């Protein structure tokens, strides 16, 4: 060490050269920066004494004396007084001695896209992506999955139909499946995705353009002792003219190739007739028998479709569980008020009830002339789908958040119009952990206000987290007649209205 201290006017200066010390240039620049930031320090250079650095030091008026070698460490500091200088030099030593400590970690880098997440998975293991980001952005995430050779369930709604078509065409070319958009229900090899029930494994594969429809069917099959292999949701628009059943056809082909699937049931809201015909002719060409449970005015309800499938399989149709509840006739002149969380279940009610009651008004009507929009206080026969997009903007699905439906029940109780109230309650993963809890109080309050027979279609299984019997008992205790079949519940309500279907 060879400290020198040329004194400048009003300044304390130290220029040292140290031998046998090496630090890399980055470390030294950091030390220089730290010392330079100290109060009372006006200039600093801590650097190896290379010709370039000596030139810099000279430019700062801090050139060392003698003949420095590049292997020496130059420590040059100018401070406003001796105290500041001493403190700065002490800080140089501690900065040089400091060990770096890690703050970051490569393991902490999150995956920002579905593509990055899928890259981590082994190529041949079964895998899929679930996309529930805002619909505007869902297409890029879904496209990632297709590009990675993986199927994808798109829960997001609000995806433009032309994007749906493009995704499904790309998926077909890539040999994978796009479930959705707006697909809330699927079960793949026993793994329930989105809203789905705990049902036993078995030989029946479902292809479903309807979430609650698939739940109704799979629960009834479970109650009949029949399990499902897979439930492949395809999104509510798949069987429309615009989409043309692109995912339905691929899902049928996949189940046809699946050794665990012996029979297929196709569940759907009313499909576009031309698409239904194409799908039917495609299904005829498969080796696995395909039965349709697509709803329409001319076809059987979902329960009847399940019963027909059981007959196909040589099995007996069981007595579907129910809690028929108090026998109470409706007040003369009463109307049907159906308040539903499941769109397909609402459709099924209207298809069964319209022939006997006449036109039923709805926010999702069978005919455009019966549309009530979002006005839910319309008089007369009314069926509301609270799961419709117009009623879920900015809020959770009614299977999670019952607020709007509870308000509607209270309004119905307060109105003078005599009515029979028909509800669905859907159990399973993703749904309210105790829907009967909130509903029972509302039903008891309503029934205390006026004569209001209540009929509930309770869609679920004993294996569901909520338990079908526990929920049924609670609803029955609140005065409701409870059915495991939506069609049976509808017919019971019609009976109460004195109109048999």
């Amino acid at each position, binding site marked *: 060490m060879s400290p020198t201290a040329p004194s400048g006017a009003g300044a304390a200066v130290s220029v040292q050269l140290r031998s046998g010390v090496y630090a890399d240039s980055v470390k030294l620049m950091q030390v220089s920066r730290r010392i330079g930031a100290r109060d009372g320090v006006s200039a600093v250079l801590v650097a190896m004494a290379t010709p*370039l650095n000596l030139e810099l030091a000279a430019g700062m008026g801090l050139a060392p004396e003698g003949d420095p070698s590049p292997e020496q460490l130059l420590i040059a500091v100018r401070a406003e007084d001796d105290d500041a200088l001493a403190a700065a030099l002490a800080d140089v030593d501690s900065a040089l001695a400091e060990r770096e400590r*890690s703050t*970051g970690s490569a393991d902490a880098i999150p995956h920002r896209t579905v593509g990055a997440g899928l890259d981590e998975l082994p190529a041949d293991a*079964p895998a899929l992506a*679930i996309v*529930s980001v805002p619909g505007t952005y869902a297409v890029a995430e879904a496209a990632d999955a297709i590009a990675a050779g993986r199927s994808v369930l798109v829960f997001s709604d609000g995806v433009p139909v032309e994007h749906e078509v493009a995704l499904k065409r790309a998926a077909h070319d890539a040999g994978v499946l796009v479930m959705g958009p707006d697909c809330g229900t699927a079960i*793949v*090899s026993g793994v329930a995705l989105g809203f789905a029930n705990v049902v036993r494994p078995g030989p029946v594969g479902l292809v479903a353009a309807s979430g609650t429809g698939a739940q109704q069917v799979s629960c009834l099959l479970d109650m009949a002792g029949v399990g499902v292999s897979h439930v492949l949701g395809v999104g509510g628009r798949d069987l429309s003219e615009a989409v043309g059943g692109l995912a339905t056809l691929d899902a049928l082909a996949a189940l046809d190739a699946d050794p665990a699937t012996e029979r297929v049931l196709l569940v759907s809201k009313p499909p576009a007739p031309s698409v239904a015909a194409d799908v039917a002719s495609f299904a005829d060409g498969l080796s696995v028998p395909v039965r349709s449970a697509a709803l329409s005015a001319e076809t059987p309800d979902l329960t009847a479709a399940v019963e027909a499938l059981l007959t196909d399989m040589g099995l007996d149709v069981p007595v579907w569980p129910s809690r028929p509840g108090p026998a109470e006739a409706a007040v003369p002149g009463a109307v049907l008020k159906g308040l539903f969380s499941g769109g397909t279940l609402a459709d099924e009610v209207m298809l069964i009830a319209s022939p006997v009651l006449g036109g039923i008004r709805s926010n999702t009507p069978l005919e455009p002339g019966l549309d009530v929009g979002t006005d839910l206080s319309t008089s007369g026969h009314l069926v509301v789908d609270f799961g419709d997009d117009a009623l879920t903007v900015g809020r959770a699905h009614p299977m999670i958040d019952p607020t709007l439906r509870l308000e509607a029940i209270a309004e119905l109780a307060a109105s003078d119009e005599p009515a029979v109230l028909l509800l669905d309650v859907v159990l399973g993963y993703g749904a309210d952990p105790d829907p009967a809890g909130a509903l029972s109080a509302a039903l008891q309050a309503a029934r205390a206000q006026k004569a209001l027979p209540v009929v509930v279609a309770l869609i679920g299984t004993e294996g569901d987290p909520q338990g079908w019997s526990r929920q049924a008992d609670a609803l029955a205790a609140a005065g409701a007649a409870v059915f495991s079949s939506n069609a049976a519940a509808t017919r019971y309500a019609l009976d109460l209205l004195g109109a048999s279907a």
Partner: protein
Amino acid sequence: MSLGNLLSGPPSIVAAGVDVFSDALRAQGAEVADVDWRPPGFGDPADLAALALDARRAAANRTAVERLLAAGSVLVDVRPAHEVIGLADRTLLHSGPPLTWEAASGPMRGALVGACLFEGWAADVEEAEILLSTGAITLDPCHHHRTVGPMAGVTSPSMWMWCLEDPVTGGQAFCNLNEGLGKVLRMGAFNEEVQARLRWMRDVLGPVLSKAVRGSIDAGNDPLDVKAVLAQMLQMGDEGHNRNRAGSLMALRELSPSIVAVEGVPSSDIAAVLTFIGGNEHFFLNLGMPTAKLALDAARNVPGSTMLTVMSRNGTEFGIQTAGTGDRWFTAPANTPVGLFLGDYGPDDANPDIGDSAIMETYGIGGFAMAAAPAIVRFVGGTVPDALATTERMYQLTLTENPAMAIPIMGFRGSPTGIDVLKVARTGWLPQINTGMAGRIAGTGQVGAGLVQPPQACFEQALTALAEEARTA
């Protein structure tokens, strides 16, 4: 249709969006990996969707990536710029997107002035500035001539250039010779010391290297495989942009025998050449850059590809080009690097980002291979794990891993390569660039080194143009 084994057993699930579903899946004992999804960092949703759904994109990007990875680079010659790229009298090349004298920054002006003095077009600085400001000197980007130049990148007709060739496509790329550190033309310095060095490089270094390189090839030796040197550098602690120590030493080792064998040159000149190369740890950078340029030029003009082919800066603006949009520049004001400073220089002394050297990051090394260079990781924010994190992040911006550029500490994973404009938008993460810093004032030279990111606006423009092109394709 087997849906990629989907139905063969309980699937692993990657979930993006609300976590209710993931929780329900975990309750069932399913394997779920949640994506840390965020709304895209930029880009009109309709443009993002148009690109996501562009049926050409996957194949186009695959083509661009394959060409990039396949390209090689060998050193075939060293020639003056007027010979090799026909650089005309009174024409100067510069780094980055197109630039006028009026818009040029301090270091760029300094380098242009220095080049006019060097070429003898002007007797003094004033005269040079008049020539430059009146349009008597033509300015053109290096990139328009298959050339790349570090920092100001100013290349004049009588400067010697490395001539590299891609044996796969026969493509060529060029770069001037590295002058060393400190007061150098590329950092905007132009004083007599700079001029003297440039004259020596013209009169001694260039001819000796030329004779050495050509002599070796004429003697039947294989040309120097520069890509192989790059690959070895990454094994030796260089990232190929801010750190080129191992590469420079390897280049010296490879070139020395043929340099020593050059005839008709005083041994003192041979010694000076070897000393110059040995004393310049960035010597290799000017061989690495045209190697990257060859690979990225091979990937040019692939309709539908969203991959970058150029990131470059002229000290005023940052510019990028993509494989899908040909020679179009997308430019925005350049950011100023943050980092560490030489001597008592500070942030106020630094010029905005400058140089074609971001071609290294475009090629997937430099800042992208930060994990390979623990000796300089403190530029990235302090620690070795931070460097690993930087490289990890860059994997999410890129289309592929370059198997030729393996990073030992990443388990010899290839470096993240092929920057995807769409992924940049979706992740909101911008490419990480390691860079030198030139002094803001003409004539200053280097003031430090550090990190910089491209301005997001370049990527916004490129995304819009690519989406427009996708819609009309």
